């Protein structure tokens, strides 16, 4: 599934390329959010030059209202893409997101499509502290009615953005903050990666590591290091959390017999917990050892670098979890 073309591109620009392609192919696609014209994170920077201020609109700081306004706008035929800037800000708009956008189609008996993309840079960014470091994918996974995308490479970021915008449903697209400045090869022409299809980032035979977002490169690094010790680690990136590619995960664990799930979120009720439970429920007999979850400590993300480091997922944590399944 990965690009072979040599065109190193920043993750954030890959997102923008997906967005650009969607805006070019469908004039109903509009982008709104706070300061999207200048774009502090960068995914919308410069779009207004190509598509005009009418399709790239700055909003007041009224998250609940502009998240909800997209529900009405999408119902009448617009295809809004919303930059929430920082994942934590979803909290301010939670009713409109979880109780309106996610539910209106279902409650109406399927009368309407709601093609909306809500995206944000999420997760820790390096001393962003408690209110700018949240990853809300675990809670949003519980909502039902929101598709959730969380890519780990520039290639996936572009293809999933296009699919998210083309999708007729509300999609939450989470850009793990620290990945924004990473680089990878990305074809210039638009392409779509289907939602709900995971990707094995590295094949292996001894243990399956399911890793999410920014933990994927960490898991890969650990996996490559272990190769030298003769331990063959498979690294599986679900890429979308809703729909979740359960088949791929179960198939992989069926082969390796061992599972580690790495999540960039607080442990309790995390995606790591969900995937672990799903696997043991459906693949218990294939498991040779206790599955291991690697996630944040159950506290807000502290500011000070050594404290933050203590709370978040570090490579040795992944390593130890892998070794535990093998011991």
């Amino acid at each position, binding site marked *: 599934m990965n690009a072979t073309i040599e065109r190193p591109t920043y993750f954030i620009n890959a997102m923008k390329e997906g967005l650009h392609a969607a805006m070019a192919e469908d004039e109903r696609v509009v982008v709104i959010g706070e300061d999207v014209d200048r774009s502090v994170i960068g995914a919308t920077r410069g779009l207004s030059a190509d598509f005009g201020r*009418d399709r790239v609109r700055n909003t007041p700081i009224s998250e609940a209202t*502009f998240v909800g306004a997209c529900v*009405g706008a999408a119902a009448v035929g617009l295809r809004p893409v919303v930059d929430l800037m920082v994942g934590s800000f979803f909290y301010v708009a939670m009713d*409109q997101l979880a109780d*309106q956008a996610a539910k209106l189609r279902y409650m*109406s*008996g399927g*009368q309407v499509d709601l093609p909306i993309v809500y995206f944000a840079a999420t997760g820790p960014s390096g001393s962003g502290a408690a209110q700018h470091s949240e990853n809300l994918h675990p809670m949003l996974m519980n909502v039902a009615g929101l598709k959730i995308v969380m890519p780990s490479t520039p290639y996936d970021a572009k293809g999933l953005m296009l699919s998210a915008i*083309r999708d007729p449903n509300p999609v939450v697209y989470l850009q793990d903050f620290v990945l924004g400045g990473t680089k990878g090869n990305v074809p210039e022409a638009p392409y779509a990666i289907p939602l709900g299809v995971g990707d094995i980032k590295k094949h292996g035979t001894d243990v399956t590591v399911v890793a999410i977002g920014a933990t994927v490169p960490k898991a890969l690094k650990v996996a490559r290091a272990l190769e030298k010790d003769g331990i063959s680690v498979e690294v599986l990136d679900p890429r979308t959390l809703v729909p979740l590619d359960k088949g791929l995960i179960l198939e992989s664990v069926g082969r390796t017999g061992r599972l580690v799930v790495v999540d960039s979120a607080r442990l309790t009720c995390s995606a790591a917990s969900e995937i672990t439970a799903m696997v043991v429920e459906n693949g218990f007999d294939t498991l040779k050892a206790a599955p291991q979850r690697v996630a944040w400590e159950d506290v807000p993300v502290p500011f000070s670098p050594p404290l933050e480091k203590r709370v978040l997922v570090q490579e040795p944590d992944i390593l130890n979890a892998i070794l535990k399944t093998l011991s």
Partner: protein
Amino acid sequence: MTTQPVQVENQTGPDAAKTAMLRTMIRIRRFEEKLAWLFKRGQLPGFVHLYLGEEAVAVGVCAALRPDDRITSTHRGHGHLIAKGASIDKMMAELYGRVDGYCRGKGGSMHIVSFELGIMGTNGIVGGGIPIGTGSAWGDKQLGRDSVTVVFFGDGASNQGVFFESMNLAAIWNLPVVFVCENNGYTEWTPTHELTAGRIVDRGTPMGIPGEQVDGNDVEAMRDATARAVARARAGGGPTLIEARTYRWHGHNEGEEAFAGDYRPQSEQDEWRGRDPIAAYGRTLVEEGVLSQADWDAIDAEESAGVEAAVEFAAASPFPDPEEALQDLFAATPKGSMR
């Protein structure tokens, strides 16, 4: 079958429109009375909030709308929907949880939706519909249409932050939206003035949004005020706030007697019942010679029959297959690009 407005003989133009407003108010009245009756007999699942006494607001407002205009509604939304042209058959079937309801039984009273009629949904969350209606106004404008959205909400909802946020957004983006606050004097069981500082009609003033307080029991006054606001919005003049002063005859929800106690003075209730918007308008139309008392009675009989028919329709409709519960969460496949 739903009774379609039958024309009083020889009526045309403005007279027909007046008769239609009277008829729609009566339809709401009979529909809601029937719901009260059904609720008491345990025939309706869930919560029911009735609109009795407030009929002139919805009917006056929607009389000023085109079919392609839109509304968002509230937990007390049946009147809005009927006024916007909803079939009481399909509404009743929805309230019964049946497959022929607007939402195939998935929604119920607080989530009735009919997108093709411009009904963007009643809402279980107080204030929840305000951003959504602001958004449909934005969507229509952005897509080059001249449709207007009316956002209905209560006095209680006027204390939700999204009301102010939405007014601000509508003001700066100059959106074709009319905010209609139905001030019935109570937020559940608490008098509005204990919870709500100042006059609601003034709340848009700092944002440059004109406000108008209207007698919500006067259907023509409501229609006229709405018509002014809609014309303004359609012409690109932006949002308006209308505060309709009215009163609900029934409790906040059916069944409140179990705990609510006496929270409204009898004299107040009597006074407002004396200002019945339907009786007043019927009398006016008879006096104006628009229709006769016999016409009025006939309309009432037709509408009463229509409500009975709606109950029959609903009762005859089957419950949805339980497996339908797992459908409609997501639309199936991406539709691909526009071109």
